[in-house]
């Protein structure tokens, strides 16, 4: 037998209580895994946003459109290197639950704006040569098992085509992301094809992406763009891409704050549950702890033993929960496309491990101190 064996032996008593406490810790850390993945999904747009990219939208809201003439005007403004349009298409592929973002864009400009979207040269050439051509991110293509050459019909919800009842696209390319967090769930097709075939709002654009020469001057450039269009028929609101993504996510609420609040409540509850279990354990084993002290175990060793038991419980159950959460997140977006960046960030694994340790120490601290302070003769007398 080792000292660790002595700790583990403590788990043999009150197995049901231990199992229930352990399960509650497992569930807490599973929830932790899922919630940090949700937070990551909402924050991904912010974290990968280019520091030198701005988004220009209508001042009133993103659903108000801007004239296509703004692109050329903005490119003339000082500090602006490049500008390219994009719009929200909002179509349905086969079933409304198959949600993914679709955007009409100008291929060359857009790929220049997003160098982190890696499209093979021959596929880029095919896109430029094919009016109905579209490219999809790797994650999206894998989700629907699309291959280059697949014909993709999209039912419109906003943009009714002039002739047919649905839009037809030919998949000519699949792009990969330069980083793990790069969004590879977009569906991009040609602005000119969109412009020719939509029934209304001709010459209008959803928003513009702008590349600035100096990221440090991004705020000044944004202000100069908004100033330029003041008192026009379509005034603008320009912000960094990160702020735009954050604002988009915040339409559903402050996800980070909500996740933090839920996790705080869960961990406080779990701390009480685990702390209560440890306190009961020490209370029931007072006489045994007295025996250990009588045999020669010091106060510090008894303290370490109770703390060790608490940490072993929190560690075993917490790691199982964290592992399950990690595995669940590794399975990808469970919402069918609404959270394309649903993943468990590596830094949150460290946070989870730190929380496990903190839970073990915090739950065991008071009972351990109680055990340490026990007078041997009093403990031996306890029935």
């Amino acid at each position: 037998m080792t000292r660790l064996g002595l700790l583990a032996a403590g788990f043999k008593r009150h197995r049901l209580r231990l199992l229930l406490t352990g399960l509650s810790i497992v569930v807490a850390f599973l929830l932790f895994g899922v919630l940090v993945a949700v937070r990551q999904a909402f924050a991904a747009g912010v974290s990968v946003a280019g520091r030198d990219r701005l988004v220009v939208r209508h001042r009133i809201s993103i659903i108000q459109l801007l004239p296509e003439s703004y692109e050329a005007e903005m490119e003339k403004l000082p500090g602006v290197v490049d500008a390219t349009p994009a719009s929200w298409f909002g179509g349905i592929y086969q079933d409304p639950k198959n949600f993914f973002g679709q955007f009409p864009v100008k291929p060359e400009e857009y790929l220049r704006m997003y160098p982190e979207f890696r499209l093979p040269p021959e596929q880029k050439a095919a896109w430029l040569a094919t009016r109905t051509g579209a490219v999809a991110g790797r994650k999206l293509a894998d989700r629907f098992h699309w291959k280059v050459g697949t014909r993709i019909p999209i039912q419109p919800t906003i943009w009714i085509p002039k002739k047919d009842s649905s839009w037809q696209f030919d998949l000519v390319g699949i792009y990969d992301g330069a980083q793990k967090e790069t969004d590879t769930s977009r569906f991009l097709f040609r602005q000119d094809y969109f412009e020719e075939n939509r029934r209304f709002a001709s010459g209008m654009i959803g928003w513009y992406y702008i590349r600035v020469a100096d990221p440090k001057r991004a705020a000044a450039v944004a202000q100069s763009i908004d100033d330029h269009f003041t008192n026009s028929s379509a005034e603008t609101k320009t912000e960094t891409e990160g702020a735009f993504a954050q604002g988009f996510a915040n339409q559903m609420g402050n996800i980070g704050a909500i996740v933090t609040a839920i996790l705080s409540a869960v961990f406080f509850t779990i701390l009480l549950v685990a702390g209560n279990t440890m306190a009961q354990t020490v209370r029931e084993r007072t006489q045994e702890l007295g025996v250990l002290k009588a045999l020669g175990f010091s106060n510090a060793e008894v303290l370490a033993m109770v703390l060790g038991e608490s940490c072993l419980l929190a560690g075993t159950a917490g790691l199982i929960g964290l592992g399950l959460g990690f595995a669940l997140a590794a399975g990808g977006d469970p919402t069918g496309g609404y959270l394309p960046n649903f993943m468990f960030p590596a830094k949150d694994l460290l946070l989870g491990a730190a929380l496990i340790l903190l839970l073990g120490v915090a739950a065991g601290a008071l009972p351990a101190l109680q055990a340490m302070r026990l007078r041997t003769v009093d403990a031996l007398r306890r029935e």
Partner: protein
Amino acid sequence: MTVSMSHPSLVPVTAGHSATLARVRGVAKDFRRGAEVVHVLRGLDLEVPRGEFLALMGPSGSGKSTLLNLLGGLDRPSAGSVEVGGEQIDRLSERALARWRARHVGLVFQFYNLLPVLSAAKNVELPLLLTPLSRAQRKRQVATALALVELEHRAGHLPRQLSGGEQQRVGIARAIVTDPTLILADEPTGDLDRKTGDGILDLLSALSRDHGKTVVMVTHDPHAAGRAGRVLHMVDGQLSTEMAA
């Protein structure tokens, strides 16, 4: 019960036991019960020669268990000094006192106080976790101690699978596994029938007689006390009578 003592580390003693192992001088012990102060021991003096089997008798509350606790370093006197093996143990720090107990004292309890989730062998091994012995050495020591109490065949059993007498023998094996100088037994036969109790007393006698262990036993039972080499009676926190068994 046959007692076989053949462990090489428990050296048989053939010479006389003249040297004093434990010396208690002017020891008082007070307890506070609310506003009231209870004087459990009142200026008690005692000398216990090395290798003696001493029985302490007396009514409940006479202070015999308190004296035993002081001898074992489980408690500290309110006044006076307790010296065991040349070490004044009432002056040791908590940590040093714990280490001293682990090295020099074996404790036998009335209700055995075995850890219910550990097998007999693991219960016996507990005090050895505080020593630098390797796992193999510990295993050998445990086997020897269990053989000494004739329970090697029950090594893997949990306490609840053992009879009262067997549990007490495991308790004795745990007390002697570190080869301590002093064995303190608090009512070791108090929870056992006469025949089983006699077996336990045989063991304690043999430890003192054949292996030179100093055994101090607290008991209510005159029959048990009669097995000791010397019997001391305690009344109101003082030694009243001394008689040879």
